[in-house]
């Protein structure tokens, strides 16, 4: 492994962490697309910077880019506060407007200069190790490593200092206000950090990867936990894992590094989406099936309790009476038998004492309490455990 390769992985990993932290809060606040918006709306900042300095390499351009990012956030917030449109609509209104202002400024005043976001922000991970930070004769490593590293340290510092405030204002703005810390300040603080991180990480890793690193790890983590701290930790791990594994995929395929990292982020999300223990598609499908069976069982037991006539309780009649398909009636019968709720004699089904007890309790719950109460009942009778 050459030093450049190590540096690329390091930059990608640090960018992943720096993006995952604000990303987690953005996803929770349903403002995930703000990073995409910022990466577009910085164009007018860059153009104005160029008009002032006439130099594509001036740091003023990057500074103005970050400021335009913050302006984007303020405008989004302002439009959203009117209550007339939702967050995503507000974002969608602001950034194309700002971006097109930039495009029009180029078209009117600088059509013969190669001026676009790419000309100012490096945005290519492969070249990051070659853009070095050199203090007279001492090579201090890649510049983007320093930029994104500083952003990360500030972000972590603010996260530790304001974790409680951020948490409360994210989940319950009203409570935060009544506790004495302004949700608006928290909001703008978070958004400013997001804006600076976006611009800084854009320079280091490029536009698409910034958006992917902000959103994908946080969204993946959200499928796995409800705990904010854990969500942050998961998001960071997914981000770093994708950064490093994506790099090696790129190495293996000789492909674009940021493209491969983004692909890894997508793959991890897909895997978690399918296999997450409680919110994954497979888990949800399984649970739905279980719930259907439980409801069927209950219906069946109620039916037995209501009918003493033998013909109503004949195994072969179940299909007609409760309108079940064969397979389902078999599953339900087996489940009920396994839990000792019914007896089958000469193909006539009758409730056992336990089954009778369970059913009357169920009726009680349905009449007196909300449906949710039935959930506890399952514990009482060890349903699905035998």
């Amino acid at each position, binding site marked *: 492994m050459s030093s450049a390769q190590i540096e690329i992985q390091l930059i990608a990993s640090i960018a992943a962490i720096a993006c995952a932290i604000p990303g987690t809060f953005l996803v929770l606040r349903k403002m995930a697309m703000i990073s995409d918006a910022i990466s577009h709306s910085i164009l007018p900042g860059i153009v104005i910077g160029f008009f002032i300095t*006439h130099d594509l390499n001036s740091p003023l351009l990057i500074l103005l880019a970050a400021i335009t990012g913050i302006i984007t956030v303020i405008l989004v917030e302002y439009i959203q506060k009117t209550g007339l449109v939702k967050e995503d609509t507000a974002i969608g209104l602001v950034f194309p407007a700002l971006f097109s202002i930039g495009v029009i400024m*180029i078209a009117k005043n600088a059509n*013969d200069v190669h001026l676009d976001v790419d000309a100012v922000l490096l945005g290519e991970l492969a070249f990051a190790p070659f853009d070095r930070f050199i203090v007279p004769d001492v090579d201090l490593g890649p510049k983007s490593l320093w930029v994104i*590293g500083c952003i990360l*340290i500030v972000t972590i510092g603010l996260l530790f200092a304001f974790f409680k405030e951020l948490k409360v204002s994210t989940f319950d703005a009203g409570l935060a206000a009544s506790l004495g810390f302004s949700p608006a300040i928290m909001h703008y603080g978070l958004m400013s950090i997001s804006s600076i991180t976006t611009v800084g990480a854009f320079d280091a890793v490029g536009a698409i990867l910034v958006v992917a690193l902000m959103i994908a790890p946080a969204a993946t983590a959200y499928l796995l936990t409800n705990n904010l701290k854990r969500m942050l930790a998961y998001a960071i791990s997914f981000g770093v894992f994708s950064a490093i594994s994506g790099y090696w995929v790129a190495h293996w395929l*000789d492909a674009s*590094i940021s493209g491969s990292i983004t692909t890894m982020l997508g793959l991890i999300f897909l895997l978690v989406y399918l296999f997450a223990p409680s919110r994954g598609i497979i888990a949800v499908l399984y649970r739905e099936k279980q719930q259907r069976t439980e409801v069927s069982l209950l219906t069946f037991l109620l039916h037995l309790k209501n009918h003493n006539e033998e013909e109503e309780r004949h195994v072969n009649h179940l299909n007609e009476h409760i309108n079940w398909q064969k397979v389902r009636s078999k599953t339900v019968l087996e489940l009920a038998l396994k839990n000792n709720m019914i007896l089958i004699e000469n193909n006539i089904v009758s409730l056992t004492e336990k089954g009778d007890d369970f059913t009357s309790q169920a009726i009680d719950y349905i009449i007196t309490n909300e449906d949710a109460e039935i959930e506890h009942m399952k514990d009482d009778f060890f349903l699905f455990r035998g």
Partner: protein
Amino acid sequence: MKKTFLFLIILSLFFSCKNEKKGNGKLNVVTTTTMITDLVKNIGGNQINLQGLMGSGVDPHLYKASEGDVTKLVNADVIFYNGLHLEGKLVEVFEKMKNKKTVAVSDVLDKNTLIGSDYFASNYDPHIWFNIDYWKQATNYVVKTLSEEIPEQKSTFEANGKNYLNQLETLKSKLNTSISTLPREQRILVTAHDAFNYFGKSFEFEVVGLQGLSTATEAGVQDVQNLANFIIEKKVKAIFVESSVPKRTIEALQASVKSKGHEVKIGGTLYSDALGNTGTIEGTYIGMYEYNVNTIVEALAAPPSR
């Protein structure tokens, strides 16, 4: 966690001090655009280990670095690039590179003769390869640089350089003959983006690009209308698609001319920011230039269709 980062940063600094040299003992030369790759190949020949970053047919605007490019750059001894912001931010990276020799072929040119921006003094049109005289200067520059790097091969490089200069001279006179068949008033070149200004200056063409230099801007509706009127007024017979710019805008222009009751045909595809595929004639600078001029002359000189 922060300690780990600090450790990693220090580790990376440690590694970055290490210098690695690989290869078969030959000088590792990396070039950016296909035009420069072709130029350096003609001069360096087998004496150098040449690797182009942008593969055949890859436009500098659309170039995306792959992981392999990192290794190419790490192992490079000399890097040749176009400069004048053609390679975007990469130019700045090359300019600041300390431990490698980086050469912008545009450095050798007299900045006062370049086509500058109307608005901003320090920015120039980077499509310098369409001026054959500039390309000759670039050839001499490459010969000089390579000779400095490998003095023992100086005579080979100089011979190759002389040979190539002759080829360029032949090309130039051939193109002049071919273009002289075209009356002055028919020398109007309408293309998708402003890549052919140096070509126009060399061969007295009026060059009109639909789109500006930057790929972020797009042609405005009014631009298309104005250009359509211009085409009708000057009786331009053909307009041209570029290999590296989507056809769409030029087709829109054609449709716009048609809607005004006139005909303009699409004269063919010109190579602007990248050469054709390696192995084909258009894959070399000379072949590309000849192909472009033949296409232009043929399309513009065609007798009016009944």
